[in-house]
């Protein structure tokens, strides 16, 4: 058992009476403290059942559940649930209570004093981006789907639980609002460091939200359990590969940053230099495109050999085509790819914080970065196998 595991499932089984095959078969799983673990899998694989076993909304038929090393398999389920935040797709706000009373549900059961509850409610409303003075006294039916789930999250955070269980929390929300909620939630999690188990059937959401992902097959068996980077770089079998679907390699670019690349030396000249000097440099380096810099050393245009040839004897002002957006160290290679395919030169410029030209990223860089990630992931799995 992992020492820092906040939640530990030990050979947990769920078998429904009258059914020959178990819904969850001997599941052993460690969930590290302060991380988001995403359970993802095709519908009917038992991922929701697994989630609901943790707060014993569904009673396990066998095995043990440990929170902080404490066996809660036989603990009072109501008291257990008050320690665990629970968010569901349909939200389930109490329609007869105000937003404030909804959020105060657990603090009230825990008999917090009034002042503390009021402060907590206002704090949480602020946290989820709903101004308290505007929303406190409203009723759930006055909220949009996105707002309702914000309140759902605030309510789950009511008594500041260490653990949150989220069952497709953003599944019923329109794509634009969903993306916003996902981003806000990730930002929130950076401050909160809750231990979160998150269920979804959407692999893209899993990749985005998860510190780790468990891809589940039938009867909730774990097909692969790893970081999103490694799953994308090295799907262990056809099941995982099919589930991740097309474009997994490109999705993997999201996890690599421009700063990880070694930028090669690339010809660049200030636009005050002559076109002839530019042409010479290109021929000397054996390149097709020159980066034209402005007076401050910022990349402004791509100039091809042909364009430089036509420019005649003057300097390079106005020669070539716009470079478009630049990359910085913290950008991902996915963003690099996006800029690259839009660029006339098929490359994209990297600049430092001052906007000064640092080098370029081209397809070769991406190719190399991906192959490195893949071989690292493969080596990791080979080591695991060798140690097993």
């Amino acid at each position, binding site marked *: 058992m992992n020492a820092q595991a906040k939640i530990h499932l030990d050979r947990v089984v769920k078998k429904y009476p009258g059914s020959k095959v178990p819904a969850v078969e001997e599941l052993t799983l460690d969930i590290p403290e302060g991380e988001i673990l995403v359970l993802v899998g095709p519908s009917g694989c038992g991922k929701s059942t697994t989630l609901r076993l943790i707060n014993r909304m569904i009673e396990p038929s066998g095995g043990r559940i440990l929170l902080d090393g404490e066996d809660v398999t036989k603990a009072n389920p109501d008291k257990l649930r008050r320690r665990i935040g629970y968010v569901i797709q349909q939200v*389930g706000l109490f329609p007869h209570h105000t937003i404030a009373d909804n959020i105060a549900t657990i603090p009230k059961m825990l008999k917090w004093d009034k002042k503390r509850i009021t402060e907590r409610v206002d704090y949480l409303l602020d946290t989820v981006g709903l101004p308290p003075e505007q929303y406190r006294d409203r009723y759930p039916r006055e909220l949009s789907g996105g707002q309702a789930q914000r309140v759902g999250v605030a309510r789950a955070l009511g008594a500041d639980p260490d653990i949150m269980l989220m069952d497709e929390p953003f599944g019923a929300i329109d794509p634009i609002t969903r993306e916003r909620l996902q981003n806000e939630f990730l930002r929130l999690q950076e401050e909160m460091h809750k231990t979160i188990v998150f269920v979804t059937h959407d692999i893209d959401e899993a990749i985005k939200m998860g510190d780790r992902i468990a891809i589940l097959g039938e009867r909730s068996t774990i097909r692969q359990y790893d970081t999103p980077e490694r799953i994308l770089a090295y799907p262990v079998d056809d099941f995982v590969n099919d589930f991740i679907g097309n474009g997994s390699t490109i999705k993997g670019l999201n996890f690599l940053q421009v700063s990880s690349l070694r930028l090669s030396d690339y010809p660049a000249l200030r636009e005050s230099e002559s076109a002839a000097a530019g042409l010479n440099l290109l021929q000397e380096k054996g390149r097709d495109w020159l980066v034209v810099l402005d007076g401050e050393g910022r990349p402004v245009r791509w100039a091809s050999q042909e364009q430089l040839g036509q420019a005649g004897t003057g300097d390079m002002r106005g020669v070539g085509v716009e470079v478009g957006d630049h990359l910085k160290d913290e950008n991902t290679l996915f963003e690099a790819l996006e800029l690259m395919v839009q660029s006339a030169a098929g490359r994209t410029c990297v600049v430092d914080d001052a906007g000064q030209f640092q080098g370029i990223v081209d397809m070769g860089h991406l190719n190399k970065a991906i192959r490195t990630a893949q071989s690292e992931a493969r080596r990791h799995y080979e080591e695991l196998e060798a140690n097993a």
Partner: protein
Amino acid sequence: MEALSSWFTYVSANIDYIWESTLAHARISLIAVALATVFSITLGVIVQRRPLARTIVLTAAGILLTIPSLALFALFIPVFGIGNTPAIAALYLYAILPILRNTVTGLDSVSPAVVESARGMGLSTWQQLVKVRLPLAWPVIMTGIRVATLLTVGITAIAVLVGGDGLGTYVQSALTRNGLPNATEQLYVGVVFTVALGLVLDLVLAVVQRFTTAKGLRL
């Protein structure tokens, strides 16, 4: 016109007795409905999630309504003797169905997601019932109570036949004295005051319903 003015003359001459009968009528009806409310809500909560028990109980309550009212009143005479008690017992049985059915329907209408989240937050079964399920089912249950009240006020007129009080006395007197002076006036006292009582009680309950329904549920 002449009939109307003679009716008003009769009413104003006998207003004290009529008022007394109306109050007795209201008392009999309301006691029956109150007893049926407590019983039906309890039973409804117990059977709502048990398909077999629920079918049995709802069918039984339905059958009770089909027993001819006169017979049902008479059936209780051997048990309670004559007077208001057998009448209240019979009315109580009639009032069960509307309240029971609406309790079950009201609890059915509570969103499963709301109950799921209540459970997920650690509300005990009792807290889920008292703090979530019943408050949400309440408008529907209250509607059942209002239907039961209207039904009961109408049938209470029969109480007189088992020795009970109420506005039925005027109807009975009109029937036995058919053709004699004031018989028609008495008949209309029975009809008009029973209907008026029903309307007033329904109005009172509508106000109660409004103020006992959580603000977030009001339309």
